[in-house]
């Protein structure tokens, strides 16, 4: 309890002085707003559902893009991890594509899909693909060779070997890539919305800014921070439940 108090002391102090300075007129209201107004804007956004609708739109795009990246990344990651010779052929192309900033694809995807979910999700998928793909290749390559021998000795079929040995053995490390990708998916979603896609939290934020509604803008910023924190906490719990996560064949 005392630790919690000590930890919240600085934020509390800042918020209180923010409120005071704002009310005495030392801080301009149109750029800094004030905590009480932000809370009120957030509450009304939640009450009329606009905040939740925007949140859903952002999540829809982020999760769609992430899911596409996860399926493609894990599939090709496992294939490349199991076939080093194929990796020698495909590797250079991957290294050439990977440094392209995902947001640089916005004009192209706009041409392909127009405004909307598809365009946003495809940019997110591109951004999320690389960390998942690369981590999966490394994870598969790092599987304890003894486990592969066990699957050989048991004459497991290819499907059984995948399901019972390779995927579970690599899963601990793959989740690290997935966690990184989830974070990226939200960042890219909000970025695409702020830049031009008229949907989601990024869009409502830029609209609030243009209408000089700094209270609403801050409220959405705080809301995004809370969402990111919540997702991370959820992922952490899911990962820690996996026995032997991250260390295939961890020692006794």
């Amino acid at each position, binding site marked *: 309890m005392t630790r919690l108090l000590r930890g919240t002391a600085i934020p509390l102090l800042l918020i209180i002085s923010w409120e005071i300075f704002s009310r005495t007129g030392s801080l301009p209201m149109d750029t800094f707003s004030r905590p009480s107004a932000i809370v009120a804007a957030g509450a009304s956004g939640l009450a009329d559902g606009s905040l939740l609708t925007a949140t859903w739109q952002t999540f829809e795009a982020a999760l769609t893009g992430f899911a596409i990246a996860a399926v493609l990344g894990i599939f090709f990651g496992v294939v490349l991890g199991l076939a080093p010779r194929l990796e020698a052929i495909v590797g250079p192309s991957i290294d050439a594509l990977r440094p392209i900033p995902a947001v640089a694809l916005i004009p192209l995807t706009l041409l392909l899909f127009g405004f909307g979910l598809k365009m946003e999700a495809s940019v997110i998928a591109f951004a999320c693909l690389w960390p998942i793909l690369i981590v999966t290749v490394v994870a598969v390559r790092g599987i*304890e060779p*003894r*486990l592969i*021998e*066990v699957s*050989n*000795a*048991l*004459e*497991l079929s290819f499907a*059984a070997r995948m399901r*019972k*040995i390779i995927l*579970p*053995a690599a*899963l601990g490390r793959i989740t690290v890539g997935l966690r990184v990708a989830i974070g990226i998916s939200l960042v890219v979603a909000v970025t695409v919305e702020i830049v031009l896609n008229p949907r989601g939290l990024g869009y409502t934020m830029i609209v609030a800014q243009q209408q000089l509604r700094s209270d609403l803008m801050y409220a959405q910023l705080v809301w995004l921070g809370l969402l990111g924190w919540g997702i991370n906490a959820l992922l952490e719990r899911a990962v820690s439940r*996996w*026995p*032997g996560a991250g*260390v*295939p*064949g*961890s*020692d*006794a």
Partner: protein
Amino acid sequence: MPVQMKEDRAVQAAPARGAAVPAVSVRGVSMAFGAERKGPEVLADISFDVGEGEFLCIVGPSGCGKTTLLRLLSGLIRPTAGEIHFHGQRVSGTSRDRAIIFQDYSKALLPWRTVAGNISLSLEACGVPAPERSGRIRALLAKMGLSHTARHYPNQLSGGMQQRVQIARCLAQQPKLLLMDEPFGALDALTRQKLQDEVARIAGEQRTTVVFITHDLEEAIYLGDRVIALASNPGRIAEMVEVGIARPRNQLETREDERFLAHRHHLFGLLQDASFSP
């Protein structure tokens, strides 16, 4: 004295019911690794048979190719020359009939599966239907003294217990041949002796053929019907000895038996010489 041992080999070496075809037959096997297998030979011209139901121990200094020989028998790797036959069939790959128990049990168990789950893996591979599995698992757990650990994960168990799990998993596939690669090398002396007795008992009960690799000479004599001593550089058979001590054996008395000591003397000198040879 060793000559005398070899004399009564004819009597001892036929534990199988007059088997004309040995369980394992190794003929002129050589093995080299490296690029296009042009590296130095690890094994050179190895030939021996293993009778059905026989417990054969292979002992040798480290680096003599013992483990390579066992991996060849399992089919995990192929020899550069020579042939290995298993019940008359040429070995060209792995088979569930030949179970291999690795020394590094912690790496050979699936860390994300419980003890019961690890044993289940073998049953799943053998196509045992799900309803039958739990009963078989329970029986194997009881046999290996693991009943109380069924729901534990491997990393929650001691080394000895983990090795028991691996043995149970291999027994689950009901192999005709059990290949053991220094299975007790990483265990403390007391645990090792206990497991030696259990493996000897189980192999005797099921009449499973066993090839057991060890660097521990006494372990080889204590467990084996027959002991093959390998010399290194390249790995080759230095001596083959019929142990000829009745079963069940006993950790105290067998190890004080005259024949035990005689074998130990003979093979000890041989292994010492062999390890110094170029």
